């Protein structure tokens, strides 16, 4: 019965997901419904990352819709699975465009990269939150590609900055191991790490593993013998949990092991909550149930049985990232409708709204974030957090690091895009 119920639930979810967040909107005027396209990877590599992130996105829309929406409009999430495959991502993009989506949030670096030319040509907002190409931070080159979050170069720079501060005498002469999934996502931070290694005079050892990363023993043998002072792991899904487990097995000190945003309670659960105690991550969105928006979702959405997924996942790192990013999108819509209340809202007007978000922190969930026509990253701030066995505990205040270097690289890469289109 349990299995049948799950099977039925899965089938129903596939059918209903597209309208799950459109509380009461079925009969509403279509012009008054702002549609956000969420083609994401539910089945291949990022699985539980996506399910929690997407759950947070839909729950936030349910919260806003439950309060009557914004400026006479309600919101609808259009959810599709692209399985982390660029071709399927392109098909999903085209379908969602036909359905009137004003934004596309693919949550996948390979899919986002494949969608950039289309989004730019179609003037459809491609939201590359925590994923995609880092040079998209340059809004003057990529007006319709909007990370709205610290991209990988900023995350890596902040992690290295923290390690520099936390090491007596700094990183000079020390060894830093970078263990990463051998994909565009894993390779993304390499330029900034190489530049920082040169600038700070530390030795950078790079250790790629093949996707999806189910077996990494040979890699970690090399890492252990490299005897790093600090280790950065960079993956998601299976690759990330296997990396963490192998790091523990190989005696890498957990308080000298850090990663970007893709590590959560679920990862720690799989590896072992106690075994992963002390591991560090870059946190771009506060986790836990304390932030006001999360508390509001619990009381106004989940408690009324309108949650998009299991209550246990509310407040996890990935869930809160979904909430935070959706809060930014809704804020962009609010600003757009404030400037011009005419419905339907268009992708171009939403674009202007998102790119004028100023000092927005989603009631304490996010670092204060300002997007401009030039800066699509929003400042690149986050904080370091450590796993204490049950939750992520902030180790620093919100901060951004090496933004001069990051922006130098952003401009150089975006210039290449302008020249070559790649």
């Amino acid at each position: 019965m349990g299995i049948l119920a799950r099977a039925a639930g899965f089938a129903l979810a596939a059918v209903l997901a597209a309208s799950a967040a459109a509380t009461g909107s079925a009969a509403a005027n279509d012009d008054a419904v702002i549609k956000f396209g969420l083609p994401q990877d539910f089945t291949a590599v990022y699985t539980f990352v996506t399910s929690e992130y997407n759950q947070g996105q839909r729950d936030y829309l349910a919260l806003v819709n439950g309060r009557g929406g914004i400026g006479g409009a309600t919101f609808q999430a259009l959810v599709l699975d692209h399985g982390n495959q660029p071709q399927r991502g392109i098909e999903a993009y085209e379908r969602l465009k036909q359905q009137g989506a004003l934004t596309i949030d693919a949550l996948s670096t390979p899919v986002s990269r494949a969608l950039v030319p289309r989004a730019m040509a179609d003037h459809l907002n491609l939201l590359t939150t925590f994923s995609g190409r880092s040079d998209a931070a340059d809004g003057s080159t990529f007006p319709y590609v909007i990370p709205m979050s610290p991209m990988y170069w900023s995350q890596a720079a902040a992690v290295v900055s923290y390690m520099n501060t936390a090491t007596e005498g700094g990183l000079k002469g020390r060894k830093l191991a970078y263990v990463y999934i051998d994909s565009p996502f894993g390779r993304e931070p390499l330029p900034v790490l190489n530049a920082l290694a040169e600038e700070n005079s530390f030795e950078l050892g790079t250790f790629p593993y093949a996707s999806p990363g189910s077996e990494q023993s040979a890699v970690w043998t090399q890492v252990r013998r490299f005897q790093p002072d600090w280790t950065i792991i960079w993956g998601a899904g299976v690759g990330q949990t296997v990396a963490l487990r192998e790091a523990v097995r190989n005696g890498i000190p957990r308080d000298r092991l850090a990663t970007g945003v893709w590590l959560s309670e679920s990862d720690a659960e799989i590896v072992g909550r106690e075994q992963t105690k002390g591991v560090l991550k870059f946190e771009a969105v506060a986790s836990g149930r304390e932030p006001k928006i999360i508390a509001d979702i619990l009381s106004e959405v989940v408690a009324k049985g309108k949650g998009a997924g299991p209550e246990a996942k509310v407040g996890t790192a990935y869930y809160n990232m979904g909430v935070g990013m959706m809060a930014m999108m809704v804020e962009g819509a609010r600003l757009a409708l404030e400037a011009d209340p005419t419905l339907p809202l268009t992708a171009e007007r939403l674009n202007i709204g998102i790119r004028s978000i100023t000092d927005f922190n989603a009631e304490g969930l996010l670092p204060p974030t300002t997007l401009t026509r030039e800066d699509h990253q929003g400042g690149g701030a986050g904080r370091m957090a450590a796993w204490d066995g049950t939750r992520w505990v902030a180790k620093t205040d919100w901060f951004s690091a090496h933004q001069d270097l990051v922006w130098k690289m952003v401009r150089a890469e975006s210039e290449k895009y302008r020249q070559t289109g790649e």
Partner: protein
Amino acid sequence: MDMAFAGELALNGALVGLFYALVGLGIVLIYKASGVANLSQGALAMVGGYVAWALATDAGLPAWLAIPLVLVVMFGLGVVLERVVLRRMAGEAPIMIIMVTLGIEIMLRGVVPGIWGADVKRLDLGIGQDPIFLGPMLINTAYLVGGVVSLVLIGLSVLFFGTLHGIVLRAVSDDQIAAWSVGIRVEHAIALAWGISGVTAASAGILWGSVQGVDWTLSLFLVKGLAVAILGGLDSVPGLLVAGLLVGIAESLVAGLLDPVVGGGTRDIVAAVIILLTVLIRPYGLFGRIHIERV
């Protein structure tokens, strides 16, 4: 070369190779019984991992009860697949039957994560995470336990072929028509092979699932299992053992020694190269009977 480094790579690689051999065992058993290469063995390993998770974690059964139950369920699934799908294909060209097994693989990869969720699931068998050191060489405890279990199961399979059922299977393997003519129930023998394959696949899925977590990627074992089965000889159980060790050690050494030179990604090429070279140079593998042909 740093011998301790190479030794550690080889030792852990050999243990991982035994996992591969466990998947290859199912392929060999079915080939021996029916002359068909079973391409659904990776998905069966994945199903075994999922069922183990469902019983041990979702239903909360203790591991000592959950694991035998999984093996029984997977034996049953193997038999059902043979009875419902494969038996209908009797008399069809081997390539059609192989395609059907590939269809089963693809279907299970989609349906099972659909039922239980595609996210990675923790499967805790209580194997400690602390490594064992042999001098300067680190041995992964989970790999060691899995390797020993694999070795035992492969050994039991070798012994099985000395039992009455095993002799029946060998007779069917040698000549199905002759086996029929002397009253052997060939269908039952083939069903038995599928049942045992379900068990060996489940063992691999459970053991590896406890290492990496349970999700669809367990089904990727198929390529490794195929490489081992083809290299060992599709009809040789002892060959599996040698081939498993060779494939595992080769993968680990190549990844450990070449990745830093070429920038990574060599591990998964090894199995593909082994399959290619074996089929081109010695299609009957290291220990297979020479009548095996390229399909």
